[in-house]
Protein backbone atom coordinates (compact mmCIF):
# COMPACT_ATOMS: atom_id res chain seq x y z
CA UNK A 1 0.00 0.00 0.00
CA UNK A 2 0.94 3.62 -0.54
CA UNK A 3 -0.03 6.43 1.78
CA UNK A 4 -0.95 9.50 -0.26
CA UNK A 5 -1.24 12.98 1.23
CA UNK A 6 -2.53 16.21 -0.30
CA UNK A 7 -1.97 19.67 1.17
CA UNK A 8 -3.23 23.25 0.89
CA UNK A 9 -4.93 24.14 -2.42
CA UNK A 10 -4.55 20.58 -3.71
CA UNK A 11 -6.33 19.16 -0.67
CA UNK A 12 -9.22 21.58 -1.23
CA UNK A 13 -9.41 21.07 -5.00
CA UNK A 14 -9.32 17.28 -4.68
CA UNK A 15 -11.64 17.22 -1.68
CA UNK A 16 -9.37 14.77 0.14
CA UNK A 17 -6.38 15.09 2.47
CA UNK A 18 -5.17 11.50 2.67
CA UNK A 19 -5.83 8.08 1.19
CA UNK A 20 -4.38 4.59 1.09
CA UNK A 21 -3.77 3.19 -2.37
CA UNK A 22 -2.63 -0.26 -3.48
CA UNK A 23 0.45 0.32 -5.61
CA UNK A 24 -0.97 0.33 -9.15
CA UNK A 25 0.57 -2.18 -11.57
CA UNK A 26 3.40 -0.65 -13.53
CA UNK A 27 3.85 2.38 -11.26
CA UNK A 28 7.46 2.68 -10.08
CA UNK A 29 8.09 6.43 -10.01
CA UNK A 30 6.52 9.72 -8.92
CA UNK A 31 5.75 10.52 -12.57
CA UNK A 32 4.00 7.17 -13.00
CA UNK A 33 1.94 7.67 -9.85
CA UNK A 34 0.95 11.17 -10.92
CA UNK A 35 -0.17 9.88 -14.33
CA UNK A 36 -2.21 7.17 -12.59
CA UNK A 37 -3.97 9.79 -10.44
CA UNK A 38 -4.58 12.10 -13.43
CA UNK A 39 -6.28 9.17 -15.16
CA UNK A 40 -8.99 9.28 -12.48
CA UNK A 41 -10.29 12.29 -14.43
CA UNK A 42 -12.34 15.22 -13.13
CA UNK A 43 -10.60 17.31 -10.46
CA UNK A 44 -7.71 14.82 -10.46
CA UNK A 45 -6.94 15.52 -14.09
CA UNK A 46 -7.22 19.30 -13.77
CA UNK A 47 -5.39 19.56 -10.44
CA UNK A 48 -2.50 17.16 -11.09
CA UNK A 49 -2.07 17.71 -14.83
CA UNK A 50 1.38 18.35 -16.22
CA UNK A 51 2.45 21.98 -16.33
CA UNK A 52 0.89 22.77 -12.94
CA UNK A 53 3.28 24.09 -10.31
CA UNK A 54 3.35 21.09 -8.04
CA UNK A 55 5.78 19.65 -5.54
CA UNK A 56 6.04 16.03 -4.46
CA UNK A 57 7.68 14.51 -1.41
CA UNK A 58 8.42 10.80 -0.98
CA UNK A 59 8.79 9.69 2.63
CA UNK A 60 8.95 13.36 3.66
CA UNK A 61 11.88 14.23 1.35
CA UNK A 62 11.46 16.48 -1.68
CA UNK A 63 11.26 14.30 -4.78
CA UNK A 64 11.36 14.64 -8.56
CA UNK A 65 9.44 12.89 -11.37
CA UNK A 66 12.02 10.08 -11.51
CA UNK A 67 12.05 9.39 -7.76
CA UNK A 68 11.20 5.75 -7.05
CA UNK A 69 7.88 4.89 -5.40
CA UNK A 70 7.27 1.50 -3.78
CA UNK A 71 5.06 -0.32 -1.29
CA UNK A 72 4.86 1.36 2.10
CA UNK A 73 5.96 4.76 0.83
CA UNK A 74 4.33 8.00 1.93
CA UNK A 75 3.87 10.28 -1.09
CA UNK A 76 2.68 13.86 -0.64
CA UNK A 77 1.49 16.27 -3.33
CA UNK A 78 1.40 20.00 -2.61
CA UNK A 79 1.80 23.47 -4.14
CA UNK A 80 5.09 25.40 -3.93
CA UNK A 81 5.58 26.34 -0.28
CA UNK A 82 4.75 29.78 1.13
CA UNK A 83 5.83 29.78 4.77
CA UNK A 84 8.06 32.21 6.66
Amino acid at each position, binding site marked *: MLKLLYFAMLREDLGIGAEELALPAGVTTVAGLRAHLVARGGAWASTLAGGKALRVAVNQEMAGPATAVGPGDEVAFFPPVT*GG
Partner: protein
Amino acid sequence: MPTIRVQTEDFDAGAEIAQIRAGNPRVGAVASFVGTCRDTNDGDAVAAMTLEHYPGMTEKALAQIVDEAIARWRVLDVTVVHRVGELKPGDQIVLVVVSGAHRGEAFAACEFLMDYLKTRAPFWKKEQTPAGARWVEARASDDEAAARWVAGTKDAA
Protein backbone atom coordinates in the same frame (compact mmCIF):
# COMPACT_ATOMS: atom_id res chain seq x y z
CA MET B 1 21.71 21.83 20.29
CA PRO B 2 19.41 23.51 17.79
CA THR B 3 15.85 24.22 18.88
CA ILE B 4 13.12 23.71 16.28
CA ARG B 5 9.46 24.17 17.12
CA VAL B 6 6.27 24.30 15.08
CA GLN B 7 3.45 25.60 17.24
CA THR B 8 0.17 27.48 17.30
CA GLU B 9 1.19 29.57 20.33
CA ASP B 10 2.98 32.90 20.09
CA PHE B 11 6.69 33.13 20.97
CA ASP B 12 8.86 35.52 22.99
CA ALA B 13 11.85 36.54 20.86
CA GLY B 14 13.62 38.09 23.85
CA ALA B 15 13.32 34.91 25.87
CA GLU B 16 14.60 32.82 22.94
CA ILE B 17 17.61 35.15 22.49
CA ALA B 18 18.37 34.96 26.21
CA GLN B 19 18.08 31.18 26.05
CA ILE B 20 20.49 30.75 23.14
CA ARG B 21 23.13 32.81 24.97
CA ALA B 22 22.60 31.24 28.38
CA GLY B 23 25.68 29.58 29.79
CA ASN B 24 27.72 29.85 26.59
CA PRO B 25 30.61 32.33 26.92
CA ARG B 26 31.77 31.48 23.38
CA VAL B 27 28.86 33.50 21.97
CA GLY B 28 29.96 36.88 20.65
CA ALA B 29 27.02 37.62 18.37
CA VAL B 30 23.33 36.82 18.17
CA ALA B 31 21.38 37.61 15.00
CA SER B 32 17.62 37.23 14.91
CA PHE B 33 14.74 37.65 12.47
CA VAL B 34 11.02 37.89 13.19
CA GLY B 35 8.51 37.55 10.36
CA THR B 36 5.07 39.03 11.02
CA CYS B 37 1.64 38.96 9.42
CA ARG B 38 0.97 42.03 7.20
CA ASP B 39 -2.45 43.64 6.75
CA THR B 40 -2.04 43.81 2.97
CA ASN B 41 -0.70 41.51 0.26
CA ASP B 42 -0.64 42.01 -3.50
CA GLY B 43 -2.72 45.17 -3.09
CA ASP B 44 -5.52 43.59 -1.09
CA ALA B 45 -6.44 43.95 2.57
CA VAL B 46 -5.72 40.84 4.60
CA ALA B 47 -7.95 40.34 7.64
CA ALA B 48 -6.39 37.06 8.75
CA MET B 49 -4.37 34.12 7.52
CA THR B 50 -4.22 30.42 8.15
CA LEU B 51 -0.93 28.57 8.06
CA GLU B 52 -1.06 24.91 7.13
CA HIS B 53 1.92 22.54 7.26
CA TYR B 54 2.95 18.92 6.70
CA PRO B 55 3.47 17.48 10.19
CA GLY B 56 6.55 15.30 10.25
CA MET B 57 8.13 16.62 7.07
CA THR B 58 8.12 20.20 8.36
CA GLU B 59 10.28 19.36 11.37
CA LYS B 60 12.56 17.21 9.21
CA ALA B 61 12.99 19.89 6.53
CA LEU B 62 13.72 22.55 9.16
CA ALA B 63 16.29 20.28 10.84
CA GLN B 64 18.06 19.75 7.50
CA ILE B 65 18.15 23.49 6.79
CA VAL B 66 19.48 24.20 10.29
CA ASP B 67 22.16 21.51 9.98
CA GLU B 68 23.22 23.02 6.67
CA ALA B 69 23.51 26.51 8.19
CA ILE B 70 25.54 25.25 11.15
CA ALA B 71 27.91 23.29 8.91
CA ARG B 72 28.34 26.12 6.43
CA TRP B 73 28.96 29.01 8.84
CA ARG B 74 30.11 27.10 11.91
CA VAL B 75 27.67 29.07 14.01
CA LEU B 76 27.21 27.92 17.59
CA ASP B 77 23.47 27.39 17.83
CA VAL B 78 20.19 28.01 16.04
CA THR B 79 16.59 28.41 17.17
CA VAL B 80 13.71 28.27 14.69
CA VAL B 81 10.10 28.73 15.80
CA HIS B 82 7.33 28.72 13.18
CA ARG B 83 3.67 29.20 14.00
CA VAL B 84 0.75 27.46 12.30
CA GLY B 85 -3.00 27.94 12.48
CA GLU B 86 -4.94 31.21 12.54
CA LEU B 87 -2.97 34.47 12.54
CA LYS B 88 -4.01 38.13 12.43
CA PRO B 89 -2.15 41.18 11.06
CA GLY B 90 0.59 42.12 13.49
CA ASP B 91 0.96 38.58 14.79
CA GLN B 92 4.40 37.00 14.78
CA ILE B 93 4.81 34.12 12.31
CA VAL B 94 8.40 32.97 12.38
CA LEU B 95 11.52 33.44 14.50
CA VAL B 96 15.09 32.58 13.57
CA VAL B 97 17.88 33.12 16.11
CA VAL B 98 21.52 32.36 15.39
CA SER B 99 24.40 32.57 17.84
CA GLY B 100 28.00 32.64 16.74
CA ALA B 101 31.41 33.87 17.72
CA HIS B 102 31.19 36.84 15.33
CA ARG B 103 28.44 38.85 13.67
CA GLY B 104 29.30 38.05 10.04
CA GLU B 105 28.52 34.37 10.27
CA ALA B 106 25.48 34.97 12.49
CA PHE B 107 23.95 37.49 10.04
CA ALA B 108 24.67 35.29 7.02
CA ALA B 109 23.32 32.12 8.60
CA CYS B 110 20.16 33.92 9.74
CA GLU B 111 19.44 35.22 6.22
CA PHE B 112 20.26 31.85 4.67
CA LEU B 113 17.90 30.11 7.10
CA MET B 114 15.01 32.41 6.20
CA ASP B 115 15.65 32.13 2.45
CA TYR B 116 15.77 28.34 2.61
CA LEU B 117 12.85 28.05 5.01
CA LYS B 118 10.67 30.05 2.62
CA THR B 119 11.40 27.75 -0.31
CA ARG B 120 11.92 24.32 1.29
CA ALA B 121 9.84 23.97 4.44
CA PRO B 122 6.29 22.70 3.76
CA PHE B 123 4.14 25.56 5.02
CA TRP B 124 1.27 27.17 3.10
CA LYS B 125 -0.53 30.45 3.79
CA LYS B 126 -4.18 31.10 3.07
CA GLU B 127 -5.33 34.72 3.32
CA GLN B 128 -8.75 36.14 4.13
CA THR B 129 -9.36 39.14 1.87
CA PRO B 130 -12.50 41.22 1.14
CA ALA B 131 -12.91 39.13 -2.05
CA GLY B 132 -12.75 35.87 -0.10
CA ALA B 133 -10.10 33.39 0.95
CA ARG B 134 -7.13 32.67 -1.32
CA TRP B 135 -3.96 30.62 -1.13
CA VAL B 136 -0.79 32.71 -1.28
CA GLU B 137 1.24 31.95 -4.39
CA ALA B 138 4.93 31.24 -4.16
CA ARG B 139 7.06 34.18 -5.30
CA ALA B 140 9.82 33.87 -7.87
CA SER B 141 11.79 36.38 -5.78
CA ASP B 142 11.89 33.85 -2.93
CA ASP B 143 13.38 31.21 -5.24
CA GLU B 144 15.91 33.75 -6.47
CA ALA B 145 16.82 34.68 -2.89
CA ALA B 146 17.44 31.02 -2.06
CA ALA B 147 19.39 30.44 -5.29
CA ARG B 148 21.93 33.14 -4.38
CA TRP B 149 23.32 30.88 -1.67
CA VAL B 150 23.87 28.03 -4.12
CA ALA B 151 25.66 30.29 -6.57
CA GLY B 152 27.88 31.36 -3.68
CA THR B 153 27.48 35.06 -4.41
CA LYS B 154 26.14 35.58 -0.90
CA ASP B 155 28.69 33.34 0.79
CA ALA B 156 30.18 35.20 3.72
CA ALA B 157 32.39 32.32 4.82
